[in-house]
């Protein structure tokens, strides 16, 4: 039996009031605005927050864990200073340029995701997909970004080909960004920076039915 909306919200409110993370389930999106309002009210209850000492130490370790770039040109420093206006797009470009960790060596060539006993999962109507914009969908255990170009669709895995982190679609730069390191991928799954050698994202099988529904091969 589907969960009643008031029970759905109460479950989420209870979690928030007990300091637990948001554990959202399928169908919760129906009350998305109420959930966001609940999260903000829960935050208001506890007032302005500071990081815990343990989390601050963890962040310090992360920040210190990669060798620093020892010097940079004044021009590059100026570019960094202008990054406020340039925003995340410029950050991505400059970030990749200055990333001092060695580029991971190429792994095996990317291949399509073909789940054992895979099945086609309906992920929406063609009309639900904006032209050229990545949309995250799930077909069981397979996460994919689906792209529509005219009447055709393509899909790539939502997982970064280097670290096991889920990508997100940055519409401003039209790139799939990895939250775990400064790399991004184009909509066809290729790494956007030729100097940061990474395998392409795995292709995910996708098709359009006669009824103009988009289906992804998942589990």
């Amino acid at each position, binding site marked *: 039996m589907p969960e009643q909306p*008031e029970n759905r*919200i*109460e479950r989420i*409110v209870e*979690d*928030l*009031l007990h300091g*637990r*993370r*948001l554990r*959202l389930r399928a169908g919760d*999106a129906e009350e*998305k*605005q109420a*959930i966001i*309002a*609940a*999260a*903000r*009210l829960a*935050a*208001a*209850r506890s*007032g*302005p*927050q*500071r990081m*815990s000492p343990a989390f601050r130490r*963890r*962040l*310090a370790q*992360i*920040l*210190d864990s990669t060798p620093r*770039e020892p*010097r940079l*040109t*004044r*021009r*590059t*420093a100026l570019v*960094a*200073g202008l990054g*406020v206006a340039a*925003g*995340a797009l410029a*950050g991505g470009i*400059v*970030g*990749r340029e200055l990333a*001092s*960790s060695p*580029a991971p060596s190429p792994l095996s060539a990317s291949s399509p995701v073909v789940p054992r006993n895979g099945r086609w999962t309906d992920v929406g109507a063609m009309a639900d997909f904006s032209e050229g914009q990545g949309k*995250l969908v799930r077909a069981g255990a397979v996460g994919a970004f689906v792209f529509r170009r005219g009447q055709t669709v393509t899909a790539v895995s939502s997982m970064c080909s280097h670290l096991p982190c*889920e990508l*997100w679609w940055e519409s401003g730069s039209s790139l799939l*960004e990895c*939250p775990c390191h*400064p790399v991004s991928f184009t909509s066809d799954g290729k790494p956007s*920076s030729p100097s940061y050698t990474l395998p392409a994202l795995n292709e995910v099988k996708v098709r359009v039915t006669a009824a103009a529904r988009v289906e992804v091969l998942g589990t």
Partner: protein
Amino acid sequence: MTLDPRSPSDSSASSGDSGEVVELPSATRATDIALDELELVYAFIYARVGNRADAEDLTQQVAMKAIPRLRQGAPASAIRGYLFATARSVLGAFWSTRLGVSQAELHEDLALAVPQGPPSDESAERARRILERLSDNYRRVLELRFLHGYSLKEVAAEMRSTVGAVKVMQLRALRAAAKVDPDA
């Protein structure tokens, strides 16, 4: 473009500038500056997700995305601007992935000015303005539940109602709160 530390002449050749170099702050100093700025980011994110675990995950994502920028020794103001641009992007992806909320729907929630000082009680002030605009019953149920931490049963007793009715009222009150523009 190369990832290896470049010599001044390499940079000059590629960028067309004089190749003059500037020394960066020490690693410890740069990390301390970054952590202080990330404190603001954490407060910004916490005010929007309402719990520590998600706020920590998202702040860590911001830090990891921003590591190259943080290492450049840029002024704190530039670092802050970049971190908040990244934080908005990360928060947008968080709600989009979990609830299918579009960036446009989050525009007002995320398009806030970059804080100029230590974390303020902005979220409490915002909540107060939202609650003020609700009907008495809706305001009361949300105040008791969220600001005073009452259980559903305690709210029901306080409002002389039933747990079931309070649960429905809480849902409706949150829907109403979501429609309030606290800046109007």
